């Protein structure tokens, strides 16, 4: 891969890694009496390894590739592998966390392995490690294909991808050491946040530069979704992480906002992160890979553009529904409810659009597990957005909030929608990227599909039951007006569901492992095959190579 870089690019990459090493060294020195020092060593190691990787090839021959005739896919390939690596790590963590809830002894009495520390490793690992890497990798693919242009340079894509992974590593290792801002989905401390801003700005500029070079005048709608993901996440990240470090030699910082104001900012961020990290970016994936794989254009392109603007506008104020029955003024809560309910319209428009695209290609869905992943993702997207709007209504929220129902809702979105569309896209993308005829094993894809689907279904049903049981038990009063059940009573009632949840998660985790194995075997074992065009189909389903015009 390094051989595709010119010597100037290699030199530039080395300079960047040297800067990284120096930053790591400084952090290690300044923060030697704080966990930040450990982070310094991690940064140093990460950049040092990269430095040597590049340095090894510094005097290699110049690349012979004609850059005007091919896309730059190396970072995409690495990104896909990194996404799968994180999927296995973070989902494994998830299974462990879930098991700890059922069998608390699994903590093994260590500090780093307590629930409070490994749960964020699971959430951040899945959202940022798996989701983020998949988004970056697919966006590299889609922005080049739909623009019909190669990326403008070969260093910044690597900087974005590896820089983002450095952020993920720092975040995950920090949690284990107990470094956290205690803001959900924004736990990493100030220096990690600052680093992410730099990476993100470069990402945005890279995207814009690629679009500016485009040879296809029209910007395909997927790019709008990806761009909104990058731009809005940048703004949200900056606003929510406004904080004053307690000292520059330590990790601890204090939020710029206090009390309920801070809560409002956190959930303004939190739900918009759901919107712009876990929805729009993955909708971009859906709008590209689903039509590609089905061989049919999106049912209504106009609707996909309209629902883009609808989602962008409606999502912004939804967050306050996370703060029902708190010190937040009633009207701010009502505002959140109103917009949550209205949000259903553009969300269902997208889900319906995706399913209508498949209308007429159901035989392909039946035969092709990859397409089935995408179809199920669209269905779960529709279901979980409906559930979300429903749960945002105040009386429903009174029952559901702080219970496992919320956890079930998040996972129906994360497993059913985000992970399914990502796996579908990865299966569609892998043979294309590595110029392979098919995936290594179509049976493994089938296995993965059914494991993922049954895992998800078991998981959400367990959580629905658990959550509603929990909510009802909490609000049951005796005749004398005291609480009928103690907290331990609810725990005992939930125990079987927690076991079921851990089992569902295990199935899902097993599917992810199979996927990783299958992708690696595809790269190593499946013979090369140069496609004339990026026509997606053939692989598992034994379909005609060129989709029949319908």
């Amino acid at each position: 891969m390094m051989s595709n870089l010119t010597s100037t690019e290699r030199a530039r990459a080395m300079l960047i890694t040297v800067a990284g090493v120096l930053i790591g060294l400084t952090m290690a020195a300044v923060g030697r009496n704080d966990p930040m020092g450990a982070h310094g060593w991690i940064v140093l190691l990460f950049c040092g390894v990269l430095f040597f990787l590049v340095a090894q090839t510094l005097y290699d021959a110049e690349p012979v590739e004609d850059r005007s005739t091919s896309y730059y896919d190396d970072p995409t390939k690495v990104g896909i592998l990194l996404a799968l690596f994180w999927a296995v790590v973070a989902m494994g963590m998830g299974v462990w966390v879930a098991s700890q809830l059922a069998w608390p002894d699994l903590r093994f009495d260590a500090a780093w392995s307590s629930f409070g520390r490994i749960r964020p490793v699971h959430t951040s690992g899945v959202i940022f490690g798996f989701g983020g890497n998949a988004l970056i990798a697919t966006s590299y693919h889609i922005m080049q294909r739909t623009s019909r242009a190669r990326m403008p340079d070969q260093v910044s894509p690597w900087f974005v991808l590896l820089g983002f992974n450095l952020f993920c590593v720092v975040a995950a290792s920090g949690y284990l050491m107990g470094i956290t801002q205690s803001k959900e989905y924004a736990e990493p401390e100030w220096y990690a946040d600052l680093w992410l801003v730099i990476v993100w700005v470069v990402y945005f500029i890279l995207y814009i530069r690629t679009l500016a070079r485009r040879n296809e005048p029209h910007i395909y709608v997927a790019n709008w979704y990806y761009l909104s993901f990058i731009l809005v996440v940048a703004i949200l990240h900056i606003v929510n992480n406004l904080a004053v470090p307690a000292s520059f030699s330590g990790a601890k910082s204090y939020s710029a906002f206090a009390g309920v104001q801070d809560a409002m900012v956190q959930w303004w961020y939190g739900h918009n992160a759901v919107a712009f990290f876990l929805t729009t970016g993955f909708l971009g994936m859906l709008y590209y890979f689903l039509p590609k794989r089905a061989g049919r254009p999106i049912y209504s392109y106009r609707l996909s553009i309209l629902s883009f603007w609808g989602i962008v506008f409606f999502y912004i104020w939804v967050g306050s529904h996370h703060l029902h029955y708190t010190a937040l003024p009633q009207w701010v809560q009502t505002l959140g409810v109103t917009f949550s309910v209205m949000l259903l319209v553009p969300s269902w428009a997208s889900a319906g659009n995706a399913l209508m695209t498949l209308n007429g290609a159901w035989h392909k869905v039946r035969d092709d597990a990859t397409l089935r992943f995408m179809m199920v993702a669209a269905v779960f997207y529709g279901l979980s957005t409906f559930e979300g709007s429903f749960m945002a209504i105040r009386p429903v929220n009174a029952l559901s909030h702080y219970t496992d129902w919320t956890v079930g809702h998040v996972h129906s979105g994360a497993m059913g929608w985000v992970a399914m569309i990502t796996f579908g896209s990865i299966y569609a993308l892998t043979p294309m990227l590595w110029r392979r005829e098919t995936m290594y094993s179509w049976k493994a894809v089938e296995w993965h599909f059914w494991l993922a689907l049954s895992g998800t279904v078991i998981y959400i049903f367990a959580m629905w039951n658990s959550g509603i049981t929990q909510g009802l038990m909490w609000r049951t009063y005796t005749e004398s007006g005291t609480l009928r059940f103690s907290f331990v009573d609810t725990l005992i009632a939930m125990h079987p569901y927690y076991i079921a949840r851990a089992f569902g998660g295990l199935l899902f985790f097993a599917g992810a492992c199979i996927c990783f194995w299958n992708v690696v075997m595809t790269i190593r074992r499946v013979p090369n095959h140069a496609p004339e065009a990026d026509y997606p189909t053939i692989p598992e389903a034994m379909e005609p190579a060129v989709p029949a015009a319908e």
Partner: protein
Amino acid sequence: MSGIGTHPQTCSGDQLQVSSREWREAEARAGVRLLANGQGHCVLSIPDLRCGGCVAKIERTLNARADVVTARVNLTLKQAVVTFADADTDPTCVISALALLGYPAIPADVAQQDEDDTDDVGRGLLRAIAVAGFGAMNIMLLSVAVWSGAAGETRDTFHLISALIAIPVVAYAGQPFFRSAFQALRMGRLNMDVPIAVAVVLALALSLVETMRGGEQAFFDAAVTLLFFLLSGRYLDHLMRERARSAVSGLARLSPRGAMLRQPDGTLTYMPLSSITPGAIITIGLDERVPVDVRIISGSTDLDRSLVTGEAMPVPAGFGDTLEAGTLNLTGVVEAEVLRSADGSFLAQMMRMQSEAETGRGTYVRIADRAAQLYAPVVHLLSLATFVGWFLATGEWHTAIFIAISVLIITCPCALGLAVPVAHVVASGRLMRMGILMKDGSALERLAEIDRVVFDKTGTLTMGTAAIGCGPGDPALRTAAKALALKTVHPAARAIAMSIAEQPCQLDDAIEVPGFGIAGCVGGRAVRLGRADWVADICLQAKGKASPVCAFADGPAMSFDLIETLRPGAVDAISSFAEAGIPVAMLSGDIAARANSIANQLDIADVRSDETPADKIAALNVLRDAGHRALMVGDGLNDAAALAAAHVSMAPSSASDAGRTAADFIFLRDGLDAVTAAWHMARATARIVRQNFALAITYNCIAIPLAMAGLVTPLIAALAMSGSSLLVIGNALRLNRAAKPRPMPMPRAGGMEVPA
């Protein structure tokens, strides 16, 4: 017969053939527009474009060519925009390359295309919608906050922010309504935009005053949401017309842009029409349309005058004959003297008659405006009455004004404004899928009202092509006739060739004598196919027989029976009008015999033949004066004025340019069932529009008393407005299911044809 020996084109034929090709190239080249950087820009219309695969194939092929800088295909418009490196490039190469791929292409009309490039009105409306949408979303957010309990300073602040957003938004997005209302008022009329503009401005003003006073209720969201909904309706309306217009401009242009002019030194040069003056000599090649009125000075040919006069069968023409602009030259190259310049020609004359005829229709007032004329005064009077009533009852200016304005806001014709355009847009989408283009919404309203139908014959009730009823039985004659017929493009000959199944026999020395027929030798024996008096030169038997005749020298002569083909679905279309009790008439420019035989076949009692364009207009005016509303269906140049004079009109896509411009509807498919399909759609749409009006009126009957009682809050106004609009839109969407088109009847073989 003395003329045959002196055919001049037999000697200079080659040169004239070359000129014909040059004309074709020059004509195509005239479609290339010079860009500022010296490159050429050409728009090709590709009717057979269906899917992304076609787009990719065409773009790949064209972009691979050395003379093409960029080629971009637009699937919506079925067009390819090609940029040539050199403005003088001949686009016919590209066109033939496309034809090889299986996509016949024609240069689209440049003059129309110039406007196409920037659809400023549509863009302006979209921008206004975006601004109104932005304002509506943000103000709604603030309003929802206020409605759900934000009080005191928070509420005042939110009102202030709303005001800061609403003022520029209304000022920008409201312009289309303000302008239209202002124009209407200046002309002393009332249209739908007057109550809209009044309500929006008053709502804004009232809310501003309330904001200053620190009042509890402000209508910012109502003002802006109203604009958003109405702009959406207006944009849909615009989109519908734009779509039809671009589809029409994609149809083949039938009138030429220029002609090959004989220069004093004897050479031929292509000149644009504008620089061709009377007295000039031009050549008119095969398959060319006559550009201006001319008189033939040499050569002879057969002419297809069907689009000009309605005559179904080709007519021969020779020295001294006058040709009207628009006539199609079929068989021979002729030289002709220009009689009149382009703007004095028959074509231009027809255009003038057409625009005169159109003024008669100018009195039609669209249904929404008719409603507004009733609605606006009623609402404004009610509002005034409310003000007076509350002022007398309470003695408070402020309360009285507030309630009076809230009456205006709640009655603002949001649903009324959407009732018509949404229904029309849905209907036009349905029609377009059926292959019927609709020029604008008023056409649909007018079509629903018809009580008379008038058809042209040639090209409308019949297809433009001839067919053979029965032919000679002698096998030798049949094979010889087929061999002769294959030598020419004359429509009658094509029909003869089609009707004979046998293999043609060996034919030697074939020669076409334009205006007369084809001669040749079979096994050393002379044979001719053509006009009876010409065939009689070699075979006396042919004398007096009906043309065309085929005969061997001194052998038996056999006459072919030429007939016109009915359009598929013609019988059903006529009978379904008859069933609905709508009398059908036929106005034809053709001779009585042909007109009557077609009419008999179709059971049309009211037939008029040999009609001039003026006669046709007069006939339609008589109908109008008698209080009838007639649908005219026609295609020819001679029908153009009549199409414009009728209450509403339709033309097939094969119609003349003028006919297509004049008609309200154009149907792209062959079957005449399009006429009834459009009529059914129009009636279904009218029904939906009436229902929508009923819904809007019901809504007002509930809302007005509430508003007059002072019970309307901004929240109720917002809910009522969105609710009624969604109801109307939902009702209009039902049109997608109403009036399902019946499966198109297959053309019946044989029985559909009548002798000419």
